[in-house]
C-alpha cells in the first residue's frame, strides 16, 4: 500500500477545517477592507473585494461543513479513526533530511553569490551521498558511494548549466 492511500482521521480533518475557516474569514475581512473607489462612482458589483470576498466566504462555509462532518465521524468512530501505522513504508528522518537539503539548495545555495554550477554540484553530491550512505556502508562500499555522488553532482551541474545557459540562453542565478 502506498503511504498516501490511508484515509485522513477526523482529527486531521477537523484541524484542517479550522484552518480553512480561519483562512476564509481572513480573506473576507481583507476583501471588506479593500478600496471601494467611491470617489469614482463605483457600484457594489465592481468593488475589487467583491469576488475574493465571496471566495473567502465559500471557503469558510465549506470549512464549517468539513468541521461538522469530522465532528460526526469522531463521535461515531473516534478522533483517530482511519489513522494507520505506516512506519514500514515511510521514514520521517529521510523526509527531514531530504526537505532540509531541498530548502538549503533553493534558499541558500542558489542566487546568494555562489556560482550556480557549484551550488548545484554541492547539492546533488550531498543528496546522493547522504541518501545512499547507509546502504553503501552495509555493502562495505563507502568509498564507491563518494565517487558515485561526486560524478552525479558534477555531471548534473555541468549538463544543467550548459543546457540552460548555452541552449536556452538563460542567465542562471
Amino acid at each position, binding site marked *: 500500500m502506498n503511504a498516501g492511500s490511508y484515509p485522513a482521521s477526523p482529527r486531521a480533518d477537523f484541524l484542517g477545517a479550522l484552518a480553512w475557516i480561519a483562512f476564509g474569514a481572513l480573506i473576507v475581512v481583507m476583501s471588506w477592507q479593500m478600496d471601494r473607489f467611491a470617489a469614482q462612482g463605483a457600484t457594489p458589483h465592481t468593488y475589487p473585494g467583491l469576488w475574493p470576498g465571496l471566495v473567502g466566504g465559500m471557503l469558510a462555509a*465549506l470549512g464549517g461543513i468539513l468541521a461538522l462532518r469530522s465532528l460526526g465521524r469522531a463521535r461515531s468512530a473516534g478522533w483517530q479513526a482511519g489513522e494507520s501505522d505506516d512506519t514500514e513504508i515511510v521514514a520521517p528522518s529521510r523526509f527531514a533530511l*531530504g526537505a532540509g537539503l531541498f530548502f538549503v539548495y533553493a534558499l541558500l545555495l542558489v542566487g546568494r553569490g555562489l556560482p550556480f554550477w557549484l551550488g548545484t554540484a554541492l547539492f546533488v553530491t550531498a543528496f546522493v551521498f547522504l541518501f545512499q550512505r547507509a546502504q553503501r556502508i552495509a555493502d562495505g562500499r563507502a568509498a564507491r558511494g563518494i565517487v558515485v555522488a561526486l560524478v552525479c553532482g558534477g555531471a548534473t551541474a555541468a549538463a544543467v548549466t550548459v543546457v540552460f545557459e548555452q541552449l536556452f540562453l538563460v542567465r542562471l542565478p
Partner: protein
Amino acid sequence: MFDGLIAFGHSLASFMDPMSIGLILLSTLVGVIIGALPGLTATMGVALMTTMTIKMPSGQALLVLICTYVGAIYGGSRSAILLNIPGTPASAAACIDGHQLAKQGLAGRAMGIATTGSVLGTLIGMFFLALFTPVLGNLALKFGAYEFFWLALFGVIIAGTLTGNDPLKGWIAGLIGIFTACIGQESIYAYDRFTFGDRNLAGGLQLVPALVGAFGFAELLATVREKPVPVKLNPFDSVIPKLRDVTQYWRTILRSGVIGTFMGILPGVGEDVAAWSSYAAARRVSKEKEKFGKGSIDGLMAAETGDNACVPGAVIPVLTLAIPGSAPAAVLMAAMLIHGVRPGPMIMIEAPTFVYDVVAMMLFATLGILLYGLTLTNLLIKVLMVPKSIIIPIIFVLCVVGSYAISQRLFDVYVMLGFGVLGYVLRRMKYPVAPLVLGMVLGDLMEKGFRRGLVLSDGALTPFFTRPISAVIWITIVLVIAIKIPFVQRMIATRFGRRPQAGGA
C-alpha cells in the same frame, strides 16, 4: 471537410523537417521516461518541459509539450505492468491486470497490449479532436460572460467531484486555487489585492512555477518520505503487439476510446478517471468478468485505451473554450498563453489551422510511442533500475532552474517552493491537487465572467440564471453537487431502492 483535410496535410508537412522530427523523438522519449518513473507525473513533465521550451518558437515548443504529454501518459503503463507501481495516476487501472499478466510471465504481451491500446486510444481521441473542435469552437462563439462564468465554475466543481475520494475536499482545493488567481492587480481598477506591497505579486502568481511546485516539488517531498523498495522485475516475453488483440477486443477499444475522449472533454477530470471509467465499463459488459483483476487482457486494453484517448479529448476544451480538460492540459494551456497562442472561442477565427497543427502533433507523438513501445523495453527497464536517490536531486534542480528560467527572477523559485509545500500538505490531508490547478487556471476567467456579467446587467443576477446555455450549466452544477450530499443520496436510495455511495460531502 476537404478544407480540414488539406489543412491537416499542411500541418503534417510543416513538421517534416529534421529539427521537428528530432524534437518529436526526443520529447516523446523524455515523456515516456518521466511517465515510467514512479513519482514523476505527466503534469510535472509538461510543466518542467514548459520551462525548458520558453525560448523556442511556439510551434516547436508546443510540439515538444504535446509529445511529452502523450509519452508520459503511455510511459506510466511500463512501471504499472513491471513493478505494480503506476508511473502516473493515469496508469493505476493498468496495474490491476497488467501486473497480474506480468506475474504469469506475460509482461511482454501486457506491454504490447498497453502499446496497442495507447496508440489506438490516442488515434480515436485525435479523430474526435479534429471532428469536434471546429463544431464546439463555433458553438463557443455564442458564449458570453455569464456562460464562461458558469463553465469555469463547472470545471472546478467537476474536477473536485471526480478527481478524489471526497468531493468536499476537492471543492475546498478548487477554492484555494480560485483564491490564488485573485492575487495581484484586478482588471477594472488595477487595484492590488493580497500583494502586501510586494511588487513581485502585483502581476499575480506565475502559473508554471506554481504548477511545478504543486506537482513536481510536492511529489519529490512525498517520494523522499518513503523508504526505498528494491525493484523486482518478472521475466518477460515479446513486446510486439498481436493483431489478434485488436480484432478480438475492437469493441473494448472503440468503447474505451469514446469514454476516454468524453472524460477528457469534461473540464478537469483527467486521464485517471478516464482509465477507471473505461475499465469499469469493460468489466460491466465483458464475457470474461471473472478474469478482471487476475490478468484480463480486456481490462488492460480498456484502461490503456481510455487514458490515452483522454489526452486529445482534454485538449478539445482547451482549444475551444480555454478550459482545460485535465491537469496536464492546464499546463499545456498555460504554455500556449506564454507562447502567444490564445486558445478559446476565437481560435477558429484567428488561427483556424492551429487545431490541425495540434492534431498533427498528436499523430507524431502517437508514432513516437509506437516506436518506443516496440523498441525501448530494455532501456526503460534500465531507467527503472536507477535509484531514486539519484533521480530526485536532478529533478529538483530542474524544478528550481525551470521556475527561475521563465522570468529569470528568484521570486518564482520561492513560489515553486511555497506551492510545493502546499501541494504536499494537501496530499497528506487527502485533498486532491487537480482542482487546485483548475481553480488557479480558471479563477481569472471565472472572476472576469462574474464581474463583466454584473456590469452588463447593471448588478442584476437574473441573466446568470435565465440565459438558456447558462441555465443548462448551472442546473448541471446543482445536480453534480446535490448527488454528493448524503441526504440527497439517501432520498435517491429510498426512491430507487439503491444503496447510497460512500464519500459523500
